[in-house]
Each structure stands twice: as C-alpha cells, then as structure tokens.
C-alpha cells in the first residue's frame, strides 16, 4: 500500500488534467470516450452490486463490492475528482475492504449465509421498499432540470488535489479538525470494544510446567522402542523391567497405522534373554534394564534403530 500511496499523488496531478476529460463541452455533455467508459463500467457495477445482494458467501459479496469500488474510482477520475479516485482506491478498497475481509476471515470464511427469510414479510417489505426507493430516486433524478454543467476545468486549474486542499484547509478546516478527532475517537472506541478483560492469570512457562507436573504426565521423553529388530527397531515395543512390552514406546503413527510389531514374535528370544542363556556376552538382567535405551545392543542389527527412539518417543507424546 505504501508504495502505491506515495507513488500515485506524486505523478497523477501533472498527468491527468490533460489526459482525462475533466471538463465538459459547451452543451454540458461528456466526451464520447467518457461515454464508452461509463457504459462499460456501469453494467459491471450494477451486476457486481447485485452480486453483493445475492451472493451466498460473504467473501463473494466482499469481492463484488471491491469491483464496484474500483469501478467507482475510475468514474471519479473520469469526472475530474482525481484525488477522490485515488483515495477511493487507497482508503476504501485498500483499507476498508481489507478490514472487511479480515473480519470475514475472523468470523469464518466458510460461513454461507442462508438466504431463507426468517422474518415474516421482511422479504416483500424489503423488495417493495428498495423498488420504491429506486422509482422515487429515478423519477426525481430524471424529472429534475439541471443547469448546464460547467465542468471542473476552471476549478482544477491548479490540479485537483491542490484545489481540494485549498477548500479543505480554508473553508472546511473546522470540519477537518473535527473529523480528525472523530477518527482518533473511533480508533480508541474500537480498541475498547474489542478489548477483552483477562479473567484468568496469564499462563507462562512456569505455570505450564507446574500444570504438567500436577497433571501426572510423562515429564521425561517416552521410552524408546525396543532393539529386538531385524529391519527397523522403531516398530518393536520396549520392555519394562518385568519383561512386559511398553506400548507407548512405539511411535503413535506406527500404532495408528497398525504397523506395530507384536512383542510375541520376539517372545522366544526374550525368554532366552530372561533365562540368561542367549545373552552371548552380557548378563541378562542388567541388559534387560538397559535395553530400552538401546545403549548396548547385543545384536549388531539393532544398531540401525538407535537414532529413532529418542525423537519418535518425543513425537508420540
């Protein structure tokens, strides 16, 4: 946004008065180019506006409104309101509509609005009121007699932003100040309104750690899988000091997928180990106690799985 805002006002004033039909001819009619632009833009705008009315999803409505607004910016520029055209893009399309979209995301972008009417008679009343308004407005606008348009050629002599600035900071300076105050107030109001008072004390690292201890969870990493593996030791449960398999030592993903190896497969070996026979070099009991850590694998094949257990144990929790 910032490059755009900085970029546009700097160049346009010098460029536009000559490039765009800010003036009207003697009969008070716009140029043909402007007519073409109008007739291209107007249907798009009306359709987009109807999209706002009929879109099921709020995001679609917001997007169609953006279309209307950008088209409006074109029209402003066409009509000699260069400054407003830029502001329209920057403030409306850039800031306000983005704010809308932001809130939409916050509320839930998927929320489709049911178009079923819940208030009895509201739809008819709304349609009649809107149509009535259209008829009245159109009637008035078409029936009224206007003076011969003078065009902004004279007013925009020093470029449109300069002319607008002259007015704002001379005739309308008080309103300008008031509006400034209003903006500040609105910003504060929004802060106050969206502020939520903290009802519970903030949870820091210390509090979270205390909670974990109080909750009785595993504080240390979960036990690593066993080492009685032939191909991948990750799927074999570790054994507790009594020789029972520990389920939680196998990574959760493997357990969910059913890729956990059955400890019974290794029962014979375990029994042998427990009996002390098969332990070729090491005494069985200390070995059993240390096997979960996998620090001293009796079997050379188990070496492949030694890295995994520490990380997967963490994951599984």
């Amino acid at each position, binding site marked *: 946004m910032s490059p755009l805002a900085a970029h546009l006002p700097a160049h346009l004033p010098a460029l536009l008065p000559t490039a765009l039909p800010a003036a009207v001819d003697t009969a008070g009619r*716009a140029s043909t180019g402007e007519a073409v632009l*109008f007739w291209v833009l107007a249907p798009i705008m009306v359709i987009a506006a109807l999209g706002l009315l009929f879109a099921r999803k709020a995001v679609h409505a917001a997007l169609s409104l953006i279309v209307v607004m950008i088209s409006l910016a074109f029209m402003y520029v066409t009509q000699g309101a260069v*400054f407003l055209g830029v502001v329209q893009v920057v403030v409306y399309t850039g800031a306000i509509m983005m*704010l809308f979209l932001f809130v939409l995301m*916050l*509320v839930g972008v998927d929320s489709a*609005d049911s178009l079923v009417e819940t208030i009895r008679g509201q739809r008819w009343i*709304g349609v009649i009121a809107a149509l009535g308004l259209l008829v009245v407005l159109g009637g008035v606008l*078409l029936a009224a007699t206007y003076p011969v348009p003078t065009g902004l050629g004279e007013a925009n002599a020093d470029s449109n932003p300069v002319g*607008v600035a002259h007015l704002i900071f001379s005739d309308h300076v008080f309103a300008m100040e008031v509006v400034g105050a209003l903006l500040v107030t609105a910003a504060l109001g929004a802060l106050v309104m969206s502020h939520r008072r903290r009802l519970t004390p903030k949870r820091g690292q210390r509090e979270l750690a205390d909670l974990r201890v109080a909750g009785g969870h595993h504080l240390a990493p979960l036990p690593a899988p066993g080492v009685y593996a032939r191909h991948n030791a990750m799927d074999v449960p570790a054994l507790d000091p009594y020789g029972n398999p520990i389920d939680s030592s196998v990574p959760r993903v493997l357990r969910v997928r059913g890729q956990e190896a059955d400890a019974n497969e290794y029962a014979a070996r375990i029994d042998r180990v427990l009996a002390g026979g098969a332990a070729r070099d090491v005494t069985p009991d200390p070995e059993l106690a240390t096997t979960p850590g996998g620090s001293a694998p009796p079997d050379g094949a188990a070496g492949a799985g030694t890295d995994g257990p520490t990380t997967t144990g963490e994951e599984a929790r």
Partner: protein
Amino acid sequence: MNLTNYLVLSGILFSIGSATVLLRRNAIIVFMGIELMLNATNLMLVTFSRMHGALDGQVLAFFVMVVAAAEVVVGLAIIVSIYRTRRSASVDDVNLLKS
C-alpha cells in the same frame, strides 16, 4: 453523454445497497450494503461537483469517506465483539431490544 446517467447509476446502486441492508442477515454483508450506499452518495456528490464546477462536493465526499472509515472501524469492532459472545454474525440473533 448526459451527466444524468451518473446520477441514475448512483440511484440504482443506492437502492441495491438499501435492499442489501434489508434482505441480508449476515451483519458483515449488511454493513457492506451500507458502504455501497455511501459510495453511491459519493458518486452523486462528485457528479454534482462536476455539474456546478465547484469542488465543495468533492470535499464533502472526502469527509464522507473519512467518516465511513471511522464508522467501519467501530462497526466491525462491534460485530467482532458480538460474534465473540454469540458465535454468530446474524443480525437477527441480536434482538435483545425485544423483551
């Protein structure tokens, strides 16, 4: 081309905006309808400014934009806080005015 076309377009947009306000239930869309109405007014102001050859209409439109910005800020804050408490952005759910 006659400048009245702009005015009529503005009237159409205004009517569609008002219909949106009346017919949609999502508070955000209702709000967008209001923005559409404001924009339609701005278009009319700009057109009249051009007709009369004076920039006051544009100044007024500028103020409308500023006020609209302020309004949007507050309005969206309201919608967010309502959504937070009621888990809904439907204007029909906010009928506490009725006892």
